[in-house]
């Protein structure tokens, strides 16, 4: 039914809004009175979000640069790397003819640090930390997080975790080099690897601090979502972003403590002579006293976190993409409830699939029967999400902003990487594929690139909300197309390496006849990786340049979105809304309803409106 919708935003919020007796503190605001508590020890969720994001960018650059160094080794093993000596020092060994080579020990340290940094610091803290902080209060109509203090501590524990990890890079014995999964006994015994000495100690300390950060953040997100929704914001009216962050926080809260316990047992084995993970080991010319432990116990504990962790990474990206896609296709997200139930199903199933990482690790083959079933079932809610995204595009009026492009790219990556998961989740095929480059291709595409694309979509889309300016769209599009093509150029060929049986984590391939004949492919991958790396630097330049010089946001709601964050003042004040909180009357996806471009959530149901959703 066609009708004309007219409303005045400020008036509506003021009249219909919810008065929570919030008073603006223009003077003497204890939260934002000085430089230190505004920009450093800030308790404002928007500032903390920026802190998470910028720290995440810092770590992403370091983690990606590490991958470039080890890709140089893999793509150009004969090439002279002496020019890296000023940076890497003794880890580049220069022979008599002046040819510098990367030390194998440091190669493994780089691989390990790349994984740890990207998984935990960038894609957990940088992605979920940034957008949960930014969007949960804003999209729910809350003044701030339930506990701003814990929120601040969450960031600073993350900062300390990063600091400890960063310092470990400079140890004379090198940082931890036993793979990001830290499997014992390699990680437990300094005799086994020089990185398993002080490097491993700092790795554990850093990650325990990180667990604290995740738990403080997570408990806050959950509490805020459950208790601080504004008037009218029922659970079923929450945008999908919030659903994703909410389930992510629950996953984190349930799984990260298990990782912490795994680390505590590891510390006992390393320092107190216990035998949780160690048994009948002969190393360094001597037998150890430890008997009765099991390295597989660690793997169970680790992957009990590790598998939910990949959903902790990908769910926020899914939420961001759903939101961005709906806004820029000018259409409601297709199958909102199916999307929510998929998120819940994925969240639940993610806890009972962990042993699919361990089909070949010596657990009883019988156990695989259960884990294969649950693992392949998780493909069903994932497929539903993909179909819903595609259906969202159908019949839309798509604006190809950089954010939208990255959302579309996300779906492509999620399909490509998700489908290879169906191979790996099947234990029979996993016999051949386990720990090969096929796995590397799979998880980089599905949780590396896809999660990054989700993050980029979020950054481009909510940048104006964070900084009051836009990022440069032309650079954004160069960034997108270059990364889209480049990322596939890097990771698609790796499937073939895996199918040829090439194991991952090899320092070089010429020791085996079977793996030695992919030199050209490895060169190609390395070159593509370098190009993609510089495209990300372009993004970073765009990001920081736009903070100061970007096009200014002149209206509150530049994208024509329905959600509440676009009703707050451009400059972003403490408490988010100057007066009453907006109250909510509808779901977040009334785009194009009754021929009206978009109807924000705070607009009451019109009597002429067709049936509500």
């Amino acid at each position, binding site marked *: 039914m066609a009708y004309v919708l007219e409303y005045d935003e400020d008036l509506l919020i003021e009249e219909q809004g919810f008065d929570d007796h919030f008073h603006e503190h223009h003077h003497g605001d204890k939260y934002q009175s000085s430089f230190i508590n505004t920009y450093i020890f800030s308790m404002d969720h928007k500032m903390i979000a920026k802190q998470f994001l910028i720290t995440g960018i810092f770590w992403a650059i370091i983690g990606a640069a590490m991958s470039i160094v080890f890709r140089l080794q893999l793509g150009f093993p004969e090439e002279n790397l002496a020019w890296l000596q000023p940076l890497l020092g003794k880890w580049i060994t220069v022979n008599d003819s002046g040819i510098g080579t990367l030390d194998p020990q440091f190669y493994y340290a780089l691989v390990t640090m790349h994984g740890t940094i990207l998984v935990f610091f960038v894609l957990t803290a940088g992605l979920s930390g940034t957008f949960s902080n930014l969007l949960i209060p804003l999209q729910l109509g809350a003044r701030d997080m339930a506990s701003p203090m814990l929120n601040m501590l969450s960031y600073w524990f993350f900062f300390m975790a990063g600091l400890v990890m960063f310092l470990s890079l400079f140890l004379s014995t090198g940082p931890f080099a036993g793979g990001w999964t830290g499997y014992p006994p390699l990680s437990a015994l300094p005799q086994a690897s020089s990185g398993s000495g002080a490097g491993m100690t700092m790795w554990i300390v850093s990650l325990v601090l990180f667990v604290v950060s995740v738990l403080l953040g997570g408990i806050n997100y959950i509490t805020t979502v459950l208790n601080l929704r504004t008037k009218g914001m029922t659970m079923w009216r929450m945008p999908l972003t919030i659903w994703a962050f909410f389930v992510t926080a629950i996953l984190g809260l349930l799984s990260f403590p298990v990782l912490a316990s795994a680390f505590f047992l590891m510390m006992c084995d390393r320092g107190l002579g216990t035998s949780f993970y160690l048994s009948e080991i002969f190393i360094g010319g001597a037998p150890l006293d430890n008997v009765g432990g099991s390295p597989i116990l660690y793997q169970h504990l680790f992957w009990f976190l590790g598998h939910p962790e990949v959903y902790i990474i990908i769910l926020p990206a899914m939420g961001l993409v759903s939101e961005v896609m709906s806004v820029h296709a000018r259409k409601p997200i297709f199958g909102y409830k*199916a999307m929510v139930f998929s998120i819940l199903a994925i969240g639940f199933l993610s806890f009972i699939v962990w042993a699919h990482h361990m089909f070949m690790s010596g657990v009883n083959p019988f156990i695989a*029967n259960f884990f294969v079933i649950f693992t392949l079932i998780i493909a069903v809610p994932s497929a539903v999400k993909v179909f819903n995204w595609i259906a969202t595009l159908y019949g839309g*009026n798509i604006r190809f902003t950089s954010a939208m492009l990255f959302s579309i790219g996300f779906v492509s990556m999620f399909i490509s990487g998700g489908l290879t998961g169906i191979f790996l989740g099947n234990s029979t095929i996993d016999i*051949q594929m386990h720990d090969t480059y096929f796995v590397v291709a799979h998880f980089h595409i599905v949780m590396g690139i896809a999660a990054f694309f989700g993050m980029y979509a979020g950054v481009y889309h909510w940048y104006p909300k964070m900084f009051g300016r836009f990022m440069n769209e032309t650079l954004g599009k160069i960034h997108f197309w270059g990364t889209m093509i480049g990322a596939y150029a890097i990771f698609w060929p790796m499937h*073939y390496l895996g199918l040829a049986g090439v194991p991952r984590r090899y320092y070089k391939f010429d020791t085996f006849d079977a793996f030695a004949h992919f030199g050209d492919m490895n060169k190609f991958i390395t070159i593509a990786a370098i190009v993609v790396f510089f495209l990300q630097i372009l993004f970073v330049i765009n990001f920081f340049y736009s903070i100061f010089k970007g096009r200014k946001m002149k209206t509150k709601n530049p994208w024509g979105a329905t959600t509440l964050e676009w009703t707050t003042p451009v400059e972003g004040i403490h408490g988010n809304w100057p007066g009453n909180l907006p109250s909510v009357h509808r779901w977040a996806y009334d785009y194009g309803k009754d021929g009206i471009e978009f109807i924000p959530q705070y607009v009451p149901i019109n009597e002429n409106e067709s049936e509500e959703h």
Partner: protein
Amino acid sequence: MTTLLILLCIILIATVFVQIGKMTELSARIRGQEDAEASSNNFNANMMIVFLVGFLIFCVGTSIYYKNSLLGYGPHQSASVHGDEMDSIWNLTLFFTGIVFVLTHIALFYFSWKYKGVKGRKALFIAHDNKLEVIWTTIPAVVMCFLVVQGLVAWNKIMADVGPNEEHIEIEATGQQFFWTIRMSGEDGLLGEKYYRDISATNPLGQVWTDEKNLDDIVSTSAGEVIKLPVGKKVRVRITAKDVLHNFDMPHFRVKMDAIPGLPTYFVFTPKITTEEYRENLLEKDRNGDPLYPEWYDLYDETSPELGTRGENFNFELACAELCGKGHYSMRRIFEIVTQEEYDNWLATQKSYFFSTVRGTDEDPYGDRLFDAEIRERKQVFRDAYTKALEATEPMDKIIRLDNITFNTGSATLTPLSKYELTNVMEVMNENPNLTIELGGHTDSAGDDEMNMDLSNKRSKAVFNWLTSKGVDENRMVAVGFGETKPEVPNDSPENMAKNRRTELRILTQ
């Protein structure tokens, strides 16, 4: 200098990009924001189609290009029986996922292009469709169930252990930083016990020597040694590790399993093609005589062309597939699959680790007894010497050195092991009633002459007494002590002095 140049280039390129960004923004402002957005929208929509086509061509093209390098395709058929089943499940999964991959990508990019934003057009308002949701939940669920069943049936078959009486070959692979030690079970077909505290330089696996199953086990630590296995026979690999996790990975056989210290694992597989046959497949030619897979005709090593082509040098390799430290990439072993006959011949030439390295050393717990094989071997040596002595014409050639008769140092007490050689002597005495012999004792030159004479007398008498106690007539034997009077070689080195300390048997009449 180069670093500086590269750095400058990067800065330059970055500046160029930033300028491009600023320029377009500026021109957008001049042309009008809406116009600029519309043209950018068109461009990106078209790019969707370009990307879709390019991407699909890339995927199909590269997979055809690399097809013959992939295991399961081209010449790389599985070398084990269970591998074929795995490869077929792989292809089944590829079939379903391939369809989904292509269709969803076409839909994704086609819709993006088709529904590009046009000013004034309204998007459809479709919020949900329960029928569609049910359809696209059910179809993946059914396909997944199908794949799960296929996969698990195969899995439980492949991972099953050997039956209690099933005929198979048992070998053991032990990983350590950074090589594999392979142990084969020898004649008895059983691997002996190990204890990790018994590992030493002379006992690399910590085999427990009191377990007799260990005595015939063959141990190969050197990466250069090729391990042979017969075609068509079930092999059970016991997989263990000494120090950290490793992974027993033989890609051509579709075999992979972690090696864990303190927790042995296993993998059972049956090789179905010999190395020789596999090489022939790689070097196969079509009807015109052109190689089907030309890359296998490349030189194996360009610096040494005499080695021949890659195909001729193909080998089944064992690798490590679980990060185990800085040498993880170098744990290579070669397995050769051969015919049963060749395998039997090869196995017969392999020495048991115990008998080749441990026997007779301090670690040998069997110092006071001989094993049947050794008794047979010593008897053969004695018999050969005896026959030679019988046939000899010169009296001085009718002497047999009885090196296996030994005494405790400085005394005339026979060592326990002497009884085997004494039994050999007793047997020939019983077989040949005409035989009379002289038992001669000799010492080296160390010590007092008279004492040496006395000791040699006592020792030859001890042998004499042992034989009489077993019923040999004392009239057929004389015991003589020569002391140091008849050295075989000059007493000028410890080795020579050892040679001179001896018991001899001289045939007097026959």
